[in-house]
């Protein structure tokens, strides 16, 4: 399949164009904070509970809160039904997302506590981990968790030899490289970075710059969503 034709991608986007994104804060009643994100064909819900006492006690950290994330896909979120319960992919994503979010939370303010972040993928296209991180960050802010910065995420990839932003599903399946990245937008520090496939040094440099710039755009949308909730606009 030809993924790039006449300088356009298979869904008509240009190389550095994001898919349509919609972010909403505070969408659930019971959770302490929540967010809903639609990103291309992804639909993701994130909820935050805490800080609350970590249970059982022996997992408590006396100097800081534990940030515990759970990435989960609904059975019907993908074309071939996913069986209930965490598979190995979900376990890995939960782990690296926990590590990324831990960095931006003032965990030292809540010793012995846990801050639980639950992310449910209701409809999956390519890029669910970046969508989830983006939603989780908004949900944390909505929950009033003290944070030193946001987390904004986006993937870059290589398709038909070309570095392109925010891979769609066919691009993800058939492309030559995938590089999800998450940053703290105020400082530009990198919180999450993975890469699979094949990139020359030059391509990597181009990709990472493209991705980091996109993260800044995501950051603006995240702020806007929170603003909208609190101003009721």
């Amino acid at each position: 399949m030809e993924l790039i034709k006449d300088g356009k991608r298979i869904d008509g986007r240009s190389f550095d164009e994001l898919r349509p994104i919609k972010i909403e804060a505070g969408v659930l009643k019971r959770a302490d904070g929540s967010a809903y994100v639609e990103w291309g064909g992804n639909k993701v819900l994130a909820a935050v509970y805490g800080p609350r006492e970590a249970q059982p006690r022996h997992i408590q950290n006396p100097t800081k809160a534990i940030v515990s994330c759970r990435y989960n896909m609904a059975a019907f979120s993908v074309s071939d039904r996913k069986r209930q319960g965490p598979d190995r992919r979900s376990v890995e994503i939960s782990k690296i997302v926990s590590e990324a979010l831990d960095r931006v939370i003032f965990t030292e303010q809540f010793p012995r506590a846990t801050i639980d972040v639950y992310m449910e993928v209701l409809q999956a296209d390519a890029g669910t981990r970046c969508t989830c991180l983006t939603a989780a960050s908004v949900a944390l802010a909505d929950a009033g968790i003290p944070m030193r910065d946001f987390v904004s995420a986006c993937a870059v990839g290589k398709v038909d030899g070309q570095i392109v932003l925010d891979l769609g599903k066919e691009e993800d399946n058939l492309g030559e490289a995938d590089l999800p990245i998450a940053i703290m937008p105020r400082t530009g520090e990198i919180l999450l970075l993975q890469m699979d496939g094949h990139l020359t040094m030059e391509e990597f440099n181009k990709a990472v710059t493209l991705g980091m710039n996109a993260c800044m755009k995501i950051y603006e949308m995240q702020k806007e969503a929170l603003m909208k909730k609190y101003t009721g606009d």
Partner: protein
Amino acid sequence: MLSEIKRDYICQLAAKGKRVDGRKFDEPREIKIEKGVAKNAEGSALVKLGDTSVMVGVKMAPGEPYPDTQDSGVLTTSAELTPLASPTFESGPPSPEAIEIARVVDRGIRESKTVDFKKLCITKNEKVWVLFLDIHVLDYDGNLFDASSIGALSALTDTVVPAKRFEIGEDFKLEVEHYPVSCTSVKIGSAILLDPSLDEETVADARLTVSIDENGDIRAMQKGLNGSFTLDEVKSIINSSKIKGDRIRELIK
């Protein structure tokens, strides 16, 4: 302690014929149904019952029939009380609560012949459609039985059998033959409250779910919690379930 105080307050209100959120005893919360919300599913629905929010998705794939029903499709129902939905829900294998909900919804569809599973036979004795019904609870403010059951029925009415994808003919709409609607009531002291909120459910003595079809016949019942009902209470609950169910049915269709 808190639950004792809450219980007293709800009982006192009930003695005056009132509920915490101002509803009448037999008045359900506002119901919103949105279909087709999960495009990778064969059918889906998002149901809101007040602040309770449940998403149901249907996935279908060819598979083997059960040995004792060689000419019928197979229904597999699961419920996931995701930890997003409540501070008391935990990750891990399905809780007894989740299993009970899934099984009550499953029987409600299967035994009341909501779908004619014989029409989901592909090759007798060999290949039939397996219908996976997944209930995903997103926000829990009481009465998951009705939210799940209404969600399941709505998702079924939205379902297109993906025959083309599996190279067994043209896609076709799943035929829903009956519309049994589940209505749940709880007993608190001597009051019977329809569509309990979380607060009401927490302090309730007994729960009864009744599913009534478009002809006014009973299709399923499930009593729950540690309390008891008198026979008269059961009959009265059945009656109000019939009346309220008729209105909900219109929303689903």
